[in-house]
């Protein structure tokens, strides 16, 4: 019989083992994976009056297109500044704004490095069902959001718009809707999320299609300071629209292994280090989505 700590280690090791499996498939300019609000908005019971401030730093890379023909390689560092507030014990609202550094290399030897603010996201997380008011074990709810096309167009010195992979966002308005479920059985917890994003009114020649994300994570708290989490995240991107035509080759599916290490150095502070490692990808356009490395810090401020 495995002890709980050994089981938790096995959880993380399983995620890493999944990650060691070679995977290859296809990319987009504005991708992500997993539940981006897991750190900022939390996964458990909202605490009325709590304000959480967070900074999430992420690095990823992405190859799009055929090597030697039309490949673009994107390296991105993204800093999300976020704030989340729970006015009641069933609602959390949040806003986040990224600042992005992008380095794009094209197959023709062209190159662009850009830095700019990205696209503002407003989200709400509503707990609809819980099994009991105090220390609930089961939480079920919905997540709603809106992404605004606040990114600033990146242009060449001659004023020509750079390709979308060098832009700080998709340029679309995105509606976000989803469900979440949390099971809390300290020191264990299970989180499940599903989220769909639908964009409209894009201002670039290319606009991403709807995107569906799902995630399942198992968490184990070693003590008051250290927690580990492992799981899987999946993303399915429907075909993008390019110059008014749907391009089936841009459809993309990725499955990630998602190990996280969480450390709380003192009350109200939480640091997270993690990775999202593509273990399987399906793509019609020779896309190879790379790893995501994540570091985040959040602090909780309680109403007194």
């Amino acid at each position, binding site marked *: 019989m495995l002890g709980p700590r050994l089981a938790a280690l096995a959880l993380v090791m399983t995620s890493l083992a999944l990650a060691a499996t070679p995977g290859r498939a*296809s990319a987009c*300019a504005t991708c992500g994976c997993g539940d981006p609000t897991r750190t900022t908005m939390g996964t458990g019971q909202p605490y009325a*009056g709590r*304000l959480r*401030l967070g900074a999430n730093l992420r690095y990823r890379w992405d190859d799009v*297109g*055929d*090597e*030697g*023909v*039309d490949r*673009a390689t994107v390296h991105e560092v993204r800093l999300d*500044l976020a*704030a989340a*507030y729970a006015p009641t014990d069933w609602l959390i609202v949040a*806003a*986040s*704004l990224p*600042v992005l550094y992008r380095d794009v290399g*094209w*197959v*023709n*030897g*062209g*190159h*662009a*490095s*850009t*830095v*700019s*603010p990205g696209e*503002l996201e407003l989200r709400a997380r509503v707990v609809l069902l819980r099994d009991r008011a105090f220390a609930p074990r089961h939480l079920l709810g919905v997540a709603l959001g809106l992404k605004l096309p*606040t*990114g*600033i*167009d*990146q*242009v*060449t*010195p001659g004023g020509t718009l*750079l*390709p*979308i*992979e060098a832009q*700080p966002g998709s340029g679309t308005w995105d509606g976000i809707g989803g469900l979440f479920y949390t099971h809390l059985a300290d020191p264990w917890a299970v989180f499940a999320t599903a989220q769909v994003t639908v964009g409209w009114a894009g201002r670039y*020649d*290319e606009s991403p299609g709807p995107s569906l994300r799902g995630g399942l994570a198992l968490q184990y708290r070693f003590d008051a300071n250290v927690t580990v989490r492992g799981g899987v995240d999946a993303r399915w991107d429907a075909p*993008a629209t*390019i*110059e008014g*035509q749907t*391009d089936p*080759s*841009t459809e993309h599916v990725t499955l990630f292994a998602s190990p996280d290490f969480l450390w709380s150095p003192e009350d109200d502070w939480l640091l997270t280090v993690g990775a999202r490692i593509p273990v399987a990808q399906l793509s019609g*356009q020779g*896309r190879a989505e790379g790893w995501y490395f994540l570091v985040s810090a959040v602090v909780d*401020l*309680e*109403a*007194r």
Partner: protein
Amino acid sequence: MNRIATAAALASLGLVAGAALPACLLDYSPGAVVDLYVEPDLGEATDANGARLQIDAAWVHLGSLTLTPCDGAEARVPEGWLSWARPVAHAHHARGDGLGLDGGHVVSLAEETWLGTLRPPPARYCGVEVIVEAATSTSDGEREALGEVDTLRVEGRREGVAWTARGPGGAALALPLTWTATADDPAARLAIHLDLRGAIERVDTAVDDEIDRGLDLVSALDADVSLE
């Protein structure tokens, strides 16, 4: 509560300050770029039997245009460009066309026509493959001149009498080219000359049916390419 209010104000300020950051292009180089043009080719011509024609208007549909690297083993031409009858398939990054233009383009030979811009990988290129084929519903350019069935349409006068030729048909033109694309050079200009008058010199323009005349011209069509 003051602590909350202060933190909320700071968070709001941070978000607003973040949004107010300028967009900066830290570094940019366009890489190897080549602009593609089709040159005009109207005017007088003499057919294989010595009859004189005045060509007033002509349109040709180019199904695709692809640069051919010298080391053919590494020349991986996208699948969509070889299969010209299929729907348009763009690269994910729409402006990142590498070796060729897809989708088809109806060009008028009355004036110079810009076809598009290629951003090929730095390499030596030894040729250009031009596919001439029937226009489709997704072709760009002056599509109404050819409808969705014709490859070519020519209008003019033969020995003073109105004369037309049109029709489907296809041809693959392999044009020699010597060009080394590098990331540091300024944009190159590549012009395709579709030698319509040369084709007229190789056919009998007295054939009764305009479609037969069109098919003959498509079969006889040749081209050359110049690079600046």
